[in-house]
């Protein structure tokens, strides 16, 4: 059961059960929605961006522990960072999850290179079908950020 223990780490279950920043934003913000039709997971995201910095974010939706925890951890880490850093972070995360490929093109000095809690999601890599659960919030985030640069 080592694989499962690694998948369902304490910190993941904690984020699943106590997801951060649930709700909606009221001020100016962009909104994106993501879903995983094959399992039914849904993720709704509000992001406020001012002067190229993510100033606030809020999430709703439902899904498995992995997608919810991934989203909650994402909320924790993106607020206060520049959009550029958040994109780096997204790329770094996708590299870790083997969603994107590349030769560590992230500058290790950049803040985006520190994944923190998110590292706990590494256990997901052993369960390839679940990778898209972990990715759902991040794909939604990219959709949201793309609206800010339009």
């Amino acid at each position, binding site marked *: *059961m080592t*694989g*499962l223990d690694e998948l369902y780490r304490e910190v993941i*279950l904690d984020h699943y059960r106590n997801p951060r920043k649930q709700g909606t934003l009221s001020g100016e913000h962009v909104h994106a929605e993501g879903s995983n039709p094959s399992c039914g*997971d849904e993720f709704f995201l509000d992001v406020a961006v001012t002067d190229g910095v993510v100033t606030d974010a809020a999430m709703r939706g*439902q899904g498995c*522990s992995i997608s919810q925890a991934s989203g909650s951890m994402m909320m924790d880490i993106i607020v206060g960072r520049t959009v550029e850093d958040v994109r780096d972070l997204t790329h770094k995360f996708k590299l870790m999850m083997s969603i994107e490929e590349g030769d560590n093109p992230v500058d290790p000095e950049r803040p985006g290179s520190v994944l923190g809690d998110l590292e706990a999601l590494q256990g997901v890599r052993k369960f390839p079908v679940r990778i898209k659960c972990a990715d759902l919030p991040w794909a939604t985030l990219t959709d949201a950020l793309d609206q800010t640069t339009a």
Partner: protein
Amino acid sequence: MTDLRALRADFPILEREVNGHQLVYLDSAATTQKPQSVLDAMDDYYRFHNANVHRGAHTLAVEATEMYEGARAKVAGFIGAETDQLVFTRGTTTALNYIAYGWGLNHLKAGDKILVTVMEHHANLVPWQLISRYTGAELVYLELNDDLTVDVSSLDQILTDDIAIIAFSGMSNVTGALGPIDVLTDAARSVGAISVLDGAQLVPHTPVDVTELGVDFLAFSAHKMLGPTGIGALWGRAERLEEMEPTEGGGEMINTVDRHSSTWAPVPHKFEAGTPPIAEAVGFGAAVDYLDAVGMDVIAAHEGELTAIALERLSEIPDLTIYGPKDITKRGGAVSFELGDVHPHDIATILDQDGIAVRAGHHCAKPLMKYLNIPATARASFYLYNVPEEVDALVESLHKARKLFGLT
């Protein structure tokens, strides 16, 4: 318990290991495993007889045609039908779409109503929605009782002459609830509506005789009854099939083709445009042969016993909620459940580590999920090759899931 254990040897895949454990396949409501005889029948077709059907005077073409039409006779016989009233389709979904387009597009008009139930599979909802867009007909729904069987108490109010079609499932693929076939068939007849039975979960699990059912149409899939993918069947009463227009045009379904108009071949060929799924028909025939040899009543009894055991053992697990009738006479062997706040997808992953295959999700029944106010369930489902030890394995693995998620 009817001992069908020896039959397991007929299913090669049951030997397989998954994550270090022998496969425990509890996902037959999604698709069933295939006995060697079905694989052999298709292999034999391809290795010795393969040719296109109906169009040829050479030996292989004759043999292929006989095998294809012979399979039609077998599958028709399996549901007590006349051979000519059995149309091969790609599956239940295609069969239901054929009815929606072939009958609906030519008979429905604005204001007409199509009565369905909340427990329907998308295959018995979306075709009616599609056809409503073209015709102006409208869907109306029967709600459910507390035990998740269909609530027919309001039928009298709903039942008006506007109802043109009543389409319902013989057995829910989510809750296992049996559909009120007789009540809805009578209802349809009383208002001159046609009745459409989604038999995807019914025909594989219980003896079905269309001469005893009052329905006008019945749809089912081979892959859910030991047969191959890529084929299913549409049965209809002769007069209903006559009333239906073909939905696909092409070779084999025509009588004459002029530049600007064509006439159709007789039923059932008018609904089988182009090269049909020939090898698949042969496999379908072998599947019903297998089921007939075991006996559908034996299979139904076996599944009933297994389901009773599963319901009992699952109810003993703390935090576990079963969605569906507890009364074994009102249900089949698809058992949906929730386990505390462990998401069904997580349940499926955890069970899979023990080699146990269950399904997690909305089971193509989103309106039902919304009705139950849940996004998804985990579902175990049984067939003739399942044994009580597999229920034990399921229960044990669910206890692991509870532990992993710290449920106490």
